[in-house]
């Protein structure tokens, strides 16, 4: 579980005045392991780059513009355009659904519930985080998909004038919307946990001041809790985005994989980088696997940027909460 533990360089623990031989050895060993972990990650990233090479050089610029995925055919025709689009679209749908629910339940725990009820709700949401993604996928296909068809049909028929919900083929099933809902359940616990922690840091004096001025509970939340926790909430959302972008197995099971770029989220189809790796890996040839590695490299790069942004925002929140500049 990712949480808000950012340590802004704190003071070193006390050390005895003399460093003995054993101490020096100990320092070397721990430093060595730290160094080894860093180097290992670097080496492994280089290998990823090297193994992506053949596919990247074969596809060239088309790797970023081509939508289809036939890396093992001659002539090969493959690219990540549709995959990147699907990855971003499904994550955005997930966040649109998950963020209000997560923030709402975090507010419930920090502002409305008593300590006992708050602990129970917090614990139950944590259980949701523990459910393995393959179980979410299985549940999504066999439980949620049939139950969401009426809802999607309703959206397509009554709100079909909005291009997002338009569904001219009138077929329903493994759509981006379904994938988004399943993803939403998976990112919800992270967003809820981090926002809850942020809300818990709001000083009670501020709350009492707002109540003293005659604010209702909601007015207090709007004028005190939200402004105080703004950075933390943004950080939580970005962390959730990072999780959603990389989710693999649930999407691979739920989504009817197609390689097109379409905003029609009630229509079955679409694909994501991660799910494509899971479904295509078994049958792929050597160029096919290299192409999958290349797409994974891109996913890594995207999540790297997202993680760094999230860290930055969360660190700012931590400094702010501690009253540091």
């Amino acid at each position, binding site marked *: 579980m*990712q949480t808000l533990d950012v340590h802004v360089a704190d003071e070193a623990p006390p050390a005895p005045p003399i460093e003995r031989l054993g101490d020096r050895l100990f320092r070397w060993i721990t430093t060595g392991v730290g160094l080894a972990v860093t180097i290992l990650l670097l080496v492994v990233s280089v290998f990823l780059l090297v193994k992506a090479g053949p596919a990247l050089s074969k596809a060239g610029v088309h790797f970023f513009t081509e939508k289809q995925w036939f890396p093992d055919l001659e002539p090969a025709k493959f690219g990540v355009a549709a995959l990147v689009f699907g990855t971003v679209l499904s994550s955005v749908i997930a966040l649109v659904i998950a963020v209000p629910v997560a923030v709402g339940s975090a507010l419930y725990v920090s502002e409305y519930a008593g300590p006992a009820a708050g602990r129970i709700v917090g614990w139950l949401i944590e259980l949701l985080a523990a459910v393995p993604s393959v179980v979410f996928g299985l549940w999504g296909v066999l439980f949620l998909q049939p139950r969401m068809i009426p809802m999607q049909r309703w959206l397509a028929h009554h709100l079909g004038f909005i291009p997002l919900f338009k569904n001219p083929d009138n077929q329903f099933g493994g759509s981006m919307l379904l994938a988004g809902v399943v993803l939403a359940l998976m990112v919800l616990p992270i967003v809820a946990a981090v926002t809850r922690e942020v809300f818990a840091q709001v000083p009670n004096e501020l709350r009492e001041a707002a109540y003293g001025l005659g604010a209702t509970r909601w007015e207090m939340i709007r004028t005190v809790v939200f402004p105080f926790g703004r950075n933390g909430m943004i950080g939580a959302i970005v962390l959730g985005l990072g999780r959603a972008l990389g989710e693999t197995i649930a999407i691979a099971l739920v989504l009817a994989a197609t390689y097109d770029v379409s905003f029609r989220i009630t229509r079955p189809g679409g694909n994501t980088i*991660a799910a494509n790796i899971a479904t295509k890996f078994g049958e792929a040839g050597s160029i096919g696997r290299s192409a999958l590695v290349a797409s994974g490299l891109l996913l890594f790069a995207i999540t790297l940027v997202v993680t760094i942004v999230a860290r930055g925002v969360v660190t700012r929140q931590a400094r702010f909460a501690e009253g540091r500049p």
Partner: protein
Amino acid sequence: MTDLLTHGRLQRWQAAVSAGAGVAVAAGLFAITPMQGRADFVVVGYACAVAGYLVTAARIEGRRQAVDRFFHALIVTAVATCLLALGAVLVYTAVRGADALKPSFFSNTMDGVGVRDTTGGAYHAIVGTIEQVLLASLLAVPAGLLVAIYSVEYGRGRLATILRTTVDVMTGVPSIVAGLFIYAFWVLGLHQGFSGFAAAMALALLMLPIVVRSAEEMLRLVPTTLREASYALGVPRWRTVLSVVLPSASAGITTGVMLAVARVTGETAPLLLTSFGNNVTNTNPLKGPQSALPLFVFQQAGSAFATAVTRAWAGALTLIVVVLVLTTIARLLTRRNRLAT
């Protein structure tokens, strides 16, 4: 406050009556218009009940109180949605899994089992999961602890910053990318082929940041006075860390480790690329493809045959029970942790 002085308070019976009126309106709508369906009625009825309640609140208590009540209702709805979703996942999995589980599931393998056979089980997958998770813990826990000790004890300067960034980056690595790392490095790069050990390495990559984070946090909580007492007795620093600081933080560290184990036990994506899957029992994690429980569920779930899907549910229930038990024990340990306040 002015609202409360100039307006009345909404009484319980008024709230109940207005919510009831909302439900009645919804029932009327379902009788007259083409709306139908039980689930639809629950949703529309709930919305109408809340609307009725809010309209009454606005008339009696004024706008500001009604807005407050509106958001209170929204927040309660959000919590209910969370719990409903959790309930739906757990209950449905439990029901389908309980139907599908039989003792032979734990003793049979998929060796020579056809798609339509009702025999077959996950013995081979369970063996694989146990070996892979154990190996992953053996790799990740000592390394994670040492990294955490370094970061807390000596972690100042450039290397510490780089290491902290590395761990941050690792927290954000998607599990499929962890699998690709090991695939590119170990399976392809060093020509080691698919194996349970490769899977364990990928899982260890995912465990490491969790272990480091929780251990760091706990080590920082150990009171300075404990260390000073140890130093005063002439104990060198390394022994102080190993026999005073670490044991005091052990409850919290164990929680972190168990949460990490729970998380990777359910991971499927990295295994696809590293241990690949197998229908027969392969007890040697160092050589040849090996199955694992999540992988088994994924492969059975992808089949179009009901017999396979049944096996998937049995596997899913087993998996979810293992993971939830681990998570719950970890939580209970937190309560006994005297360092965490």
